[in-house]
């Protein structure tokens, strides 16, 4: 359960995650914004369909892959949030090659 220790400044960024609007802070990575908003699982694996969540937050583990603005398998921890960004969690094999 993640929580913000510092509330984002007035001008928060709005992103959409699987159709649901979420408030993020300007310095957030997509992965940080998802976790802070309570979205714990960002994808299921192509091999067994097991749920996965951001693990390293520094670009090495590739667990935080999501679709960002229609492009699949982007590293959420290396991508900074932008107003209006559309994020989709990825479900298994079907979307790995998107």
């Amino acid at each position, binding site marked *: *359960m993640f929580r913000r220790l510092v509330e984002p400044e007035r001008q928060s960024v709005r992103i959409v995650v699987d159709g649901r609007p979420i408030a993020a802070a300007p310095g957030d990575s997509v992965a940080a914004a998802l976790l802070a908003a309570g979205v714990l699982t960002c994808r299921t694996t192509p091999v067994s369909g097991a749920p996965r969540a951001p693990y390293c937050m520094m670009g090495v583990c590739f667990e935080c892959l999501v679709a960002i603005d229609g492009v699949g398998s982007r590293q959420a921890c290396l991508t900074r949030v932008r107003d209006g960004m559309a994020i989709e969690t990825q479900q298994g094999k079907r979307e790995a090659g998107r």
Partner: protein
Amino acid sequence: MSDLASIKDQYDLAVIGAGPAGLAAATLGARFGLATVLFDEQPSPGGQIYRAITETPLRERSLLGEDYWKGAKLADDFARSGAHYAAGATVWSISQEREIGVSMAGRARLLAARHVILATGALERPFPIPGWTLPGVMTCGAAQILLKSSGVGLDGKVILAGTGPLLWLLAAQYRRAGVRIDAMLDTTPHRNWLAAMPHLPKFLQSIYAAKGRLLLHEVKASVKVVRGVTALAARGEGRLQEVAYRVGHRREIRLPADTLLLHQGVVPNVNLASAIGCVHHWDETQLCFVPEIDEWGRSSVAGVSIAGDGGGIAGAEAAAETGRLAALDAAWQLGKIDDFARDRHAGPYRAALAEARHGRRFLDVLYRPAAAFRRPGGDTLVCRCEEVTAQQVLDAVKGGATGPNQLKSFLRCGMGPCQGRLCGLTVTELIAKARNTAPGEVGYYRLRPPVKPITVAELASLPQSDAARKAVVRG
């Protein structure tokens, strides 16, 4: 900040990574008149140790601690250095001729550098326990990045587990931030204390001793610490619900948990250096592969130097000094300074480096992780990407796989998007144990460019040369 178009075709010096080593190297390189570019994957400078140093929402200095804020001067000096800063840039290839392939915002470029300094830092050692892929489990480093860059902490039941200074630092930072930790499960083997004792006198003279003592005291006063943990598992349906542990032969204890933060030290991030062809060797104390470098950070490949933790773990203070030494040497190699100037400038950097390295051996030996947490067995996942278990790896070795590269064809182990970063050391150590040989003999995955996955669209966005066009023209 800059975009791909503003990057020139040729630089004197290209530095990869904006942690302490990279920032210090690029700053000094530019100061000596080298046309310098610094590529970094993150959107702002600092690397992981000084992550988000220019923009962290946690402005209360005591919270992250004064060691963190040392990064502000490095970032400040760099910003004024005149070096070109390419943030959000992923370097996916460097050839032995120092042609660099880099992507920014989904587009790719090739450029040339007369000298390259790799400052790709460290990553956390794999911590393969049952259930380490469950949502709710992440590394201490990851949790600390959330804290530094977004001011995000934790609620609910929080458990820290593992060994090493970062475990204690994070616990202290959480305490100051008002984040409650339910338990800290210390996996440091008891016998490490004995092994580390001969190195204690030097440690006590070091810059780390007083800080370490304060940190331990601060954490022990506020967190329940369980010493001598010998087995650890994360369990839950679809997400973490419980952490189970054992101390020696005592019965298993289960704790309800929402978050488990794992850490057992850091190891050099060798992917880029390996893919270039730099020679590495096994370090039996630090239990990882380390590139072979000389006192200036020169690797086995001409024109490629390695600075910071990527050249062997020694911490942030040492990283900045090795960055400066590598930059000095680059300026000398490229004719900007003579022998006399190089050696005169190097003096204070070498003295500071010696001070920063003094006493590190004690930490290396004390926090050397136990075999049980480096070489898992049974159904525990080794390769997270391709979901390969320890037993599958051992069976493949029995079936004739002699090294990590054969495992790729046997099991696809190490062939997922992380390219072995989260399983490479585990696989090497498992094979070495099974074959009763040394990890250095077994070796590591053969790494090839691109060292980060790139899309065909990115490749297609590369400007075409005449040679490339002719290569596909018929007749």
